[in-house]
């Protein structure tokens, strides 16, 4: 089938959306951005195609009588098995790379214990990986770097302590290796992995093997790809395949909510206020200056500082019962202020709520410079997934602009890629 793909190469994450010719979304994919943009684009596209396969499985299962009530559970199992296979494959690559990096004067005469410590660390990582992909387990992140990294720190430190080695040695090897591993083009054979995922024990073969295999046999043709976002100029695409991110965000928001007039997009490193006309065409916009305070990276930094996943920040901040005012503007200083306040015995959730308020206050000033908020208002970008940020935003919009309809879509991180995919459809069909 013909696929139209939009890729939004952001500073922090790279998103891809696959559409059919009727502008129906078939799949979405996301990965962390890395120094090799081609790889980031290729991985996000592959993820979106994996998601497209899952959509095709769903359609194919729904056509089989008697699977209606188990379809979702079966698909969830299938996806989890698939992810686990993928994860272990990358873990093996990382282990090989780490062991290959134990060389040079830093390790002279210590190679053997270092390699043994690495092998033991990875043995524990593999052992633990099954629990990461067990039903109902909430993973800290969906990106290999975060999943492997958190586990590596935790297990590596323990292994080194037992072996009497300096953890810094091993951490440095990890830093060197993870960059190499994540910048390699993604391993292919998606269909083969799905077949293996299907053969894992948790799935009832008799019922679903046939529909899944029939859906796997549909060829996915990449008809037209459009790139946008922070890294768009460095994508390996011809010029006519590149669109400005402001245009893509405006159109993406319009596709999700045709009544949109104002868009706030808080991404990794920029915050944009955009005004669009009834057709989704941009009329006016404003952006922040180059400072991480007030964008997604601010929260990312705080998450690292607290040893938490980015997705865990919002829920914790929601439990706050007391207003804490954060005095630092600079992200790094806010991190230090957080440490100081924790040391003084302030509650984590209260400090976090204050940090969330700080980021939204910065966004409000950008919106007012972009001409304020008109009805309907659509909030997009990665931070729109954060419930604590959304709560603050609703409060401040109501205080400043009265009762405006606020649209927030759980998939709003894909808005730019969605606009890109729509441009891809238009490029071919118009």
């Amino acid at each position, binding site marked *: 089938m013909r696929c139209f793909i939009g890729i939004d190469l952001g500073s922090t994450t790279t998103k891809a959306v696959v559409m059919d010719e009727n502008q129906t979304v078939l799949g979405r994919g996301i990965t962390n951005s890395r*120094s*090799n943009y081609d790889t980031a684009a290729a991985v996000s596209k592959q993820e979106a195609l994996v998601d497209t396969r899952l959509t095709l499985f769903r359609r194919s299962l729904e056509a089989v009588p008697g699977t209606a009530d188990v379809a979702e559970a079966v698909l969830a199992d299938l996806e989890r098995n698939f992810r686990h296979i993928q994860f272990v494959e990358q873990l093996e690559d990382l282990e090989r790379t780490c062991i290959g990096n134990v060389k040079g004067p830093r390790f002279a005469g210590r190679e053997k214990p270092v390699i043994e410590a690495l092998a033991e660390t990875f043995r524990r990582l593999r052992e633990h990986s099954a629990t990461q992909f067990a039903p109902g387990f909430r993973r800290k992140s969906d990106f290999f770097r975060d999943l492997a990294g958190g586990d590596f720190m935790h297990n590596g430190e323990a292994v080194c302590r037992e072996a009497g080695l300096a953890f810094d040695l091993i951490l*440095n090897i990890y*830093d060197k290796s993870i960059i190499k591993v994540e910048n390699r083009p993604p391993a292919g054979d998606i269909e083969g992995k799905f077949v293996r995922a299907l053969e894992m024990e948790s799935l009832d073969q008799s019922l679903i093997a046939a529909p899944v295999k029939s859906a796997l046999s549909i060829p996915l043709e990449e008809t037209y790809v459009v790139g946008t976002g922070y*890294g768009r100029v460095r994508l390996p695409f011809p010029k006519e395949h590149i669109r400005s991110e402001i245009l893509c965000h405006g159109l993406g928001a319009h596709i999700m909510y045709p009544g949109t007039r104002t868009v706030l997009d808080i991404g990794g490193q920029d915050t944009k206020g955009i005004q669009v006309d009834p057709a989704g065409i941009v009329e006016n916009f404003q952006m922040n200056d180059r400072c*991480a305070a007030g964008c997604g990276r601010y929260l990312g930094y705080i998450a690292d500082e607290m040893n938490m996943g980015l997705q865990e920040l919002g829920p914790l901040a929601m439990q706050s019962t007391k207003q804490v005012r954060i005095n630092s503007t600079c992200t*790094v200083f806010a991190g230090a202020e957080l440490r100081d306040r924790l040391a003084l015995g302030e509650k984590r959730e209260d400090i976090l709520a204050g940090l969330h308020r700080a980021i939204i206050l910065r966004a409000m000033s950008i919106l007012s410079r972009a001409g304020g908020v008109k009805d309907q208002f659509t909030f997009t970008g990665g931070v729109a997934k954060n419930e604590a940020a959304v709560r603050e935003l609703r409060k401040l919009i109501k205080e400043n602009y009265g009762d405006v309809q606020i649209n927030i879509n759980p998939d709003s991180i894909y808005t730019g890629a969605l606009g890109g995919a729509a441009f891809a459809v238009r490029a071919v069909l118009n």
Partner: protein
Amino acid sequence: MSAIITAGVDIGSGCVKTVLFEIDGDKTRWLGKELSRIRSRDPFLLADEIYDAMLSKAGVSRGDVAYVASTGDAENLRFATGHFYSMTTHGRGAVYLNPDARAVLDIGALNGRAIRIDGGGKVLTYKMTSQCASGSGQFLENIARYLGIAHDEIGMLSQKADNPERVSSICAVLAETDVINMVSRGISAANILKGIHLSMAVRLAKLLKSIGATDGVVQMTGGLALDTGLVAALNEALVKEKVALVAESHPDSIYAGAVGGALWGAFRHQKLSRLEAVAA
């Protein structure tokens, strides 16, 4: 006046440092030193741990120490006798490490400060960097980690640069993204690091000018004093800015604050003892 033993404990935002001295009139003997990176642990517990480790290596018990000086963020340290401000301890520690020092540049994980001192290490004037982390130690460390470069390789690599890439971005957090971009444009780690060192150096040179440090030796203290690449870049920047200062570092520069604390602690202890003797 018999010999006394004093200690200095310096808690920074990245590291905890402790030192131990024996002081007899104007003769000093350095008995022990210990440091540990905080890495999101409780710095006060860490200070306790490494203080004890240092004492046991030196064969000294807690009771033998006449004065424990705290400095930096260690103000609430339970076992401290008294606290000294960072300016005064870094000034004193710098002169101990290098008697020629007439200015100090203390660059830690978050803050930088320039201090002008006299020959005895007394503070004449000082100035801090602003409330923004661009060019701090933390910033440099994040970038090195991203490049997969160990802490102690930064300086050496930076000095191998043949075509430093100037960093335009100011923000410490977003500068990392610029680095990702540079890597993807194929710029070498050496040239990236040197570019960052140079942009830091230009700002530090201006900071030194602003406190009226015009000639002589500026002693680097704090964690970044160990970064030979930064020291070299600073000396290049000072020549360019036509300032007759020479930046120097010392292998023990990171202990400067703790050293200054232990030395001022001895001074304060002796003053107190004399007062007590008079009172008795």
